[in-house]
């Protein structure tokens, strides 16, 4: 039990807000389109992110078709294949996962979970979404410009990213960089909001150590994003100058198309350092909200308090801090001083410790819990499994000597898809099944949900588990067609075909999910205010879905931590955070 003494609150009435000084929408446009309400902005973020995510899903189908049945689909040429890879990676990592976790779940859950009426700067919050949308539109537009989108790989490594011969060198790379710069500007506006709301906008009784882990995960990830995105911003600006003005920040002297190019003296490695100084924290920007959300899902659906809450918080903060000193483990084959390899391998392995603490704590939370195998719980369990799988292969790749032969093989692809593709997506699904009732007031269909879960979970394993084996065989990544090579047995091609069929099935299963979301809007079972009997504040709102301003006249007062499940002697198996202790019933508090 977390333990800021509740006597601090004794006899203090809840914060009454005389005049609710919110921005009040005056028309349909300012209510639903240019809304300054974090909940609407959250839905806008989530819808946009999922829409662009569907594009990335289709791109992954096209890649899998080519890999599974090389030569069959003549409309996929090698250039297009590279463009599909690039856009798939970029969209999934930044425009889907980052935007959905921070812009979507962050906007919805932070004000509700900390007991605030809204984000602290609603106007900047609104701008954040519209700039994000602009970034997405610029990104989509690259599909329609001459030369198509960039095919430089999602890491955009120079020099090849801006040299002729790389697909999308004409306009695609420029628009990609502009889109990234826009995304970062938009994100900063939202990110400042999330951080200040958590630090300065909490309700009475809500101490930092009473925050649900969801808020801790999103908060830490946002702080990291505010410190990591600048590196990407700078790298994008510099590469844009290299491409547009002909500067040589990243471009060495080189021969292009048989002629000595205009560039000279730049350092491609500098870009890699800047990119991965952003890129590695980015992994945890996606993972930490997932960690936080999954902790809450497990605790709620296992009806047990989270095991080792304080340790969980410090593990999140520790992972966040550590992730800024591991970036060069992405660059073992880039030609660094070997001593750096030693340093970064060490830090990489150390970061496994807090991560392992989290996994053990999830398991111990489940241990002897009253586990309800609801759809959110199924997805949470699937997350633990896929995350452990991806984490263990991460230990392989974190060691220099093991990484060097595995670099640029399918093993790497399998690793990062398991750890930051499948695992966070499992949490996204679990979280949507968990909070959809609060957002819409209706439950998602359970049967469709279970179908969606099993196809997605088993299908994702069918795609990515064999990929480890292909990687160990030495099948390279990013190749349009590996052709006939002596070290790749014929059976590997059968495996590729199998994985491609699995990918198609998993992709189609997402349509079931989309159908479920649309259908449940009108036909879903009525959810009531708190269908999961959860303790956190967002389930205690006076209305469901929560009205503008979230709470009534009075803000809630928090008396306990977020995990009072199955407390011995309590009347119910959960005690909401705003329920006062029996000994203490302050005047005018909620009963």
């Amino acid at each position, binding site marked *: 039990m977390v333990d800021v003494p509740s006597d601090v609150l004794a006899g203090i009435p809840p914060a009454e807000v005389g005049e609710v000084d919110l921005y009040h929408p005056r028309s349909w446009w300012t209510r639903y389109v240019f809304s300054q309400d974090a909940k609407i902005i959250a839905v806008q973020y989530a819808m946009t992110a999922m829409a662009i995510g569907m594009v990335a899903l289709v791109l992954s189908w096209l890649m899998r078709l080519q890999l599974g049945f090389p030569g069959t689909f003549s409309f996929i040429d090698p250039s297009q294949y590279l463009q599909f890879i690039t856009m798939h990676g970029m969209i999934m990592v930044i425009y889907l996962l980052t935007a959905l976790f921070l812009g979507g779940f962050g906007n919805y859950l932070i004000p509700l979970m900390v007991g605030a009426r809204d984000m602290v*700067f609603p106007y900047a919050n609104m701008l954040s979404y519209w700039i994000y949308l602009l970034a997405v539109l610029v990104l989509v537009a690259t599909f329609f410009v001459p030369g198509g989108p960039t095919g430089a790989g999602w890491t955009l490594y120079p020099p090849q990213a801006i040299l002729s011969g790389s697909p999308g060198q004409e306009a695609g790379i420029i628009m990609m960089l502009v889109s990234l710069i826009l995304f970062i500007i938009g994100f900063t506006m939202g990110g400042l909001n999330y951080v*200040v709301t958590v630090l300065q906008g909490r*309700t009475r009784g809500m101490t930092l150590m009473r925050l649900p882990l969801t808020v801790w995960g999103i908060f830490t990830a946002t702080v990291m994003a505010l410190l990591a995105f600048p590196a990407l911003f700078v*790298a994008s600006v510099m590469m844009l100058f290299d491409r547009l003005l002909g*500067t040589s920040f990243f471009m060495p002297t080189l021969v292009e198309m048989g002629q000595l190019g205009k560039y000279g003296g730049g*350092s491609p490695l500098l870009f890699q350092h800047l990119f991965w100084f952003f890129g590695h924290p980015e992994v945890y920007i996606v993972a930490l909200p997932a960690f936080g959300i999954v902790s809450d899902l497990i605790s709620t659906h296992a009806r047990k308090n989270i095991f080792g809450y304080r340790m969980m918080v410090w593990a999140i903060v520790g992972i966040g801090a550590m992730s800024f000193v591991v970036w060069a483990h992405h660059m073992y084959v880039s030609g660094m001083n070997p001593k750096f390899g030693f340093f970064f391998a060490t830090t990489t392995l150390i970061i496994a410790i807090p991560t392992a603490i989290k996994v053990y704590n999830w398991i111990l939370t489940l241990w002897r819990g009253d586990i309800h195998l609801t759809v959110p719980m199924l997805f949470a369990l699937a997350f633990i499994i896929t995350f452990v799988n991806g984490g263990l292969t991460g230990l392989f790749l974190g060691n220099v000597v093991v990484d060097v032969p595995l670099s640029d093989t399918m093993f790497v692809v399998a690793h990062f898809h398991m750890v930051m593709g499948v695992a966070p997506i499992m949490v996204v699904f679990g979280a949507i099944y968990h909070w959809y009732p609060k957002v819409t007031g209706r439950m998602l269909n359970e049967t469709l949900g279970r179908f969606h879960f099993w196809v997605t979970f088993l299908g994702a394993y069918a795609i990515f588990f064999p990929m480890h084996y292909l990687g160990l065989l030495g099948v390279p990544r990013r190749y349009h067609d590996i052709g006939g090579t002596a070290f790749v047995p014929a059976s590997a091609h059968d495996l590729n075909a199998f994985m491609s069929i699995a990918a198609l099935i998993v992709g189609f299963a997402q349509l079931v999910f989309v159908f479920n979301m649309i259908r449940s809007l009108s036909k879903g079972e009525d959810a009531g205010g708190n269908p999961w009997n959860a303790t956190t504040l967002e389930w205690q709102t006076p209305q469901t879905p929560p009205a503008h301003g979230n709470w009534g006249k009075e803000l809630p007062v928090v008396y306990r931590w977020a995990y009072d499940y199955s407390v011995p002697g309590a009347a119910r198996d959960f005690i909401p955070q705003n329920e006062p202790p029996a000994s203490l019933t302050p005047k005018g508090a909620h009963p």
Partner: protein
Amino acid sequence: MTETVLTNIEKRRTTTVGWQGIVADWSSDQRAFKNVSWGKAMMWIFLLSDTFIFGCFLLSYMTARMSTAVPWPNPSEVFALTIAGQHIPLILIAIMTFVLISSSGTMAMAVNFGYRHDRRKTAILMLVTAAFGATFVGMQAFEWTKLIMEGVRPWENPWGAEQFGSCFFMITGFHGTHVTIGVIFLIIIARKVWRGDFETERRGFFTSRKGNYEIVEITGLYWHFVDLVWVFIFAFFYLW
């Protein structure tokens, strides 16, 4: 939404000071920084993020400068001016630095008068600060023009490593953009102070929120940050 009123904080503040006070604040409810408003907290966190942007720019520049195989032009010579027959190295930069540092002084005075609700002095001092800032940007424009006339381009220059021009235009350009935004911001806030928006609790046009004189201090935070960044640019780019 209005900021929630803290009612129970005074009691605790008197009992705990120093490190224990920090721990007490951070383990308390509602706010981690007790006397800090939302706007000020936001500006501090934004500046932390912006520090990383300038840090990355400067580190990239230093990497380029240290790793180039072609000699780096000598900044003392490049940025020298001949005034009245005297060849003085770095004179323009020295003046620019002096102007910008002075503007920090007038800004600090504006913050002081703002909290005293002295509208006239606050607005005048903010406009003086803005004028210093505009002078700085003007001198920077002069410097850019001079270098461009001498053949310095982002992709080449007559004296050595081509990264000299690219780093120079990028870093001073990015800093100059910050100063320009600061000047615009100062003028907008000075107008609000002059008009008495913060006395009449007039609501913002976009945000429909009431402001107060703290916005002068928040503007000041940004302005001092931009000055501080210039000190680093001055040291690393011109004096190295």
